[in-house]
């Protein structure tokens, strides 16, 4: 029996009063691809960060290649042949590719020799593993798929034998993800060990040999991938049976309520982010906009919600609304009947330092219902309203004085949703509604969106999770490079077809 190359024994780690890892034991065999699944907050990233020396475990042992290892910082881990590709890239934007690769692994006091050395090694690596990059280009000029390649090259440059990847496909098109998996299989064939952290069950089934499931800081089970399936994995992740697709009735769309024509938006750097966007949104339907992050989704949300101005025309309930100038702002847009659940609830949707009740008026705080005499806010009304809504949306803990930052991701999202839905908008635009949200809350949020649709409202759903788009939408459009690539009925399309459109292939 092959000895494991990595063994973790009884690893525990707490952050303050939160126990992120509880007594975790894990064995990974050399030359395999091992997956680690779990919901957000299950502790996967923490565990791997400990292996990489980014954090130090409170208790437990790490054994690499049969020998006890002390990993007190990433230098130790790198010395042991461990490399990690993080979810959010750790690159310097205005440095070149070479400078980024060499940073921290320089060969002397002057940088020139280090750069020359790196250039040579990069050429070799590119040949061996299909990892082609231009060594002199600036990071800020490269696309996301390229950046990930550079992160992998960084690890290989430091002679990593064990490669950890944390949620690598979040920013890739399906075909880019396939290319990544090809690279990973090549690496495996060269004898490298790969650990893949992901919440996407399909990827686990696709590329891993073995998989471990984590739940709430504990290691639940480790299985051989060919002996399991997504449903079993989901159940292990959550602890109960999980509905992977939402049940919904057929949509009964009525008249058009939001009509966009030729929206053209360029950002502060002058780059054209939205190119001639035109679509029609009707009452009683969910229009899903699919696409890999960075293709104009965020800009589309900003333009529709009034945060940014744009060229073109938008008709709301038959009336043209102003798209630039003083009258084009989120406050007026809300008054016109457009509510917005933003992509980033912590950065945009909520004030983390405000309590739940203070957040309930956020964006609507100038409305007459919250007015008390001329300048004051009607706090008592706001508080009782919050209390009711927290019950209705099952937000826990149900204390309206708790600060937003103390709620879990799912409950924070429900707060935002409660606020936006209960304003009874004609149009609800939603960005990444279930990002960083536990499965229980995902089910709740999906159900509420369907309910909203069935009550005759119009929903524009923007999400990078293709499953979510396919599950919820009635019609689907794909955004690629700021353009609408195509429109399909959800019932008549599938991931493969959408994947091609997402990659710009019509």
């Amino acid at each position: 029996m092959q000895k494991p190359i990595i063994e973790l024994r009884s690893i525990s780690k707490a952050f303050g009063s939160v126990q992120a890892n509880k007594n975790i034991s894990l064995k990974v065999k050399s030359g395999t691809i091992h997956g680690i699944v779990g919901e957000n907050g299950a502790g996967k990233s923490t565990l791997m960060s400990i292996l990489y020396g980014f954090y130090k475990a409170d208790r437990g042992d790490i054994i690499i290649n049969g020998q006890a290892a002390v990993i007190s910082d990433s230098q130790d881990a790198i010395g042991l042949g461990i490399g990690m590709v993080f979810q959010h890239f750790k690159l310097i934007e205005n440095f070149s590719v070479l400078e980024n690769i060499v940073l921290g692994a320089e060969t002397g006091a002057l940088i020139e020799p280090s750069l020359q050395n790196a250039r040579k090694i990069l050429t070799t690596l590119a040949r061996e593993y299909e990892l082609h990059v231009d060594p002199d280009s600036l990071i800020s000029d490269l696309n996301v798929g390229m950046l990930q390649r550079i992160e992998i090259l960084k690890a290989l440059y430091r002679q990593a034998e064990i490669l950890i990847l944390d949620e690598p496909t979040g920013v890739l098109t399906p075909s880019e993800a396939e290319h990544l998996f090809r690279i990973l299989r090549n690496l495996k064939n060269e004898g490298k060990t790969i650990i893949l952290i992901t919440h996407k069950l399909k990827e686990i089934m696709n590329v891993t040999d073995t998989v471990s499931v984590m739940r709430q800081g504990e290691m639940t089970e480790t299985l051989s991938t060919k002996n399991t399936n997504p449903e079993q994995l989901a159940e292990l992740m959550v602890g109960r049976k999980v509905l992977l697709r939402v049940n919904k009735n057929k949509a009964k769309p009525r008249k058009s309520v939001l009509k966009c024509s030729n929206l053209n938006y360029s950002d502060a750097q002058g780059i054209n982010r939205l190119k001639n966007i035109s679509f029609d949104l009707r009452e009683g339907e969910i229009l899903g906009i699919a696409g890999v992050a960075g293709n104009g989704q965020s800009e589309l949300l900003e333009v529709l919600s009034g945060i940014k101005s744009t060229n073109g025309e938008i008709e709301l309930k038959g009336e043209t609304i102003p798209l630039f100038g003083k009258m084009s702002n989120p406050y007026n847009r809300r008054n016109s009947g457009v509510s917005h659940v933003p992509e980033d609830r912590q950065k945009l949707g909520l004030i983390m330092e405000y309590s739940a009740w203070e957040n309930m008026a956020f964006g609507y705080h100038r409305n007459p219902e919250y007015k008390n005499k001329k300048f004051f806010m009607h706090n008592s009304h706001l508080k009782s309203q919050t209390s009711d809504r927290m019950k209705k949306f099952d937000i826990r803990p149900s204390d309206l004085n708790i600060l937003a930052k103390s709620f879990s991701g799912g409950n924070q999202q429900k707060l935002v949703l409660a606020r936006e839905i209960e304003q009874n908008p004609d149009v609800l635009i939603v960005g990444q509604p279930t990002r960083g949200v536990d499965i229980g809350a995902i089910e709740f949020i999906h159900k509420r969106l369907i309910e909203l649709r069935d009550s005759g409202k119009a929903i524009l759903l923007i999400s990078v999770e293709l499953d979510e788009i396919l599950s919820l939408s009635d019609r689907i459009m794909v955004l690629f490079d700021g353009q609408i690539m195509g429109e399909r009925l959800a019932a008549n399309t599938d991931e493969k077809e959408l994947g091609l459109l997402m990659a710009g292939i019509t």
Partner: protein
Amino acid sequence: MNILPKWAELVLIPLISVCIAFVISGIIIVLIGENPISALKLMIDGALGSSYGWGYTLYYATNFLFTGLAVSIAFHAKLFNIGGEGQATVGGLGVAIVCLSFPWPHWSVALIAASFGAMAFGAIWGLIPAYLQAKRGSHIVITTIMFNFIAAALLNYLLVNVFRPDGSMDPATAKFPDQTNLPTLHEILSLIGIPFSKAAPANVCFLIAILSCFLVWVLLWRTRLGYEIRAFGHSDSAAEYAGISSSKIIIVTMMISGALAGLMAINNVMGEAERLVMNSAEGAGFIGIAVALMGRSHPFGVLLASILFGFLYQGGAELALWTSIPRELIVVIQALVILFTGALDNLVRIPLEKTFIYFRKGNA
């Protein structure tokens, strides 16, 4: 997860930070060859031991309350207004112009007009850096510091060349007419039979400062504008999402802040000096920063902190009189308070959190 209960966050941390600042100050006093305990005794006697001392303590506290509120309200919008000194200086100009240009029949009318004058001038001095920050991205910290220097130069020029009465060699305005003299605490308290030092400068402006304190609290936590200011301070990106204009908040907040700092002039220029002199603000704008940090930018905390600093200032004056410790000691204490309450709060917070977790685990 909030590890520390609210009272620990708002009261305990600044309290411990201030104690550390005082201890270090005590060590410095030892190092320059004086006895910190006897220095403290002298300070307490001089500042709190008589109504004369209290009169001065409350007079200074009034100054610091105005400037402390000014810095606090800017802090709520995450703006660092270091320009309180300059705003207080120009506020003095406003007061002087009002008091000297019109024959006021009664001090109450003069006070209202002078208040508006002070606030208007102070607001303008806060408006310019605010506008530059909002529209041009100029760092408000540096611009407000620059405006302090510019205000001093402006005051210098005006006092020497414009306001100086003919025949006087003193760079100062003429004395304000008697009708503008404000009632001191001595006069106010004697109306209800309480004896109070006649010589101390504490005056009716102390009551106005307390009123301002209350009004700032109402503004921040009960009005829509306050809701927007605090939201913007916490997250300007979220504020944009909510339709709150960042330019509007920056400009309005700084104008209110400048107005509050400028309003200080009714106390020192109109209430005490009864004319405008060079360097009239005497560092009160800077002490306002320490007061705001110590009071955690909460109006009530600022009130307590300003009384503490009033005590320090008066105590420091007594020290300078009776020992060889110069008044600059107060600047050192002020610096240490700013350092420990504003930048080193984690020094206190982290061990405190560990203590709370330890006791919580013990009880669990």
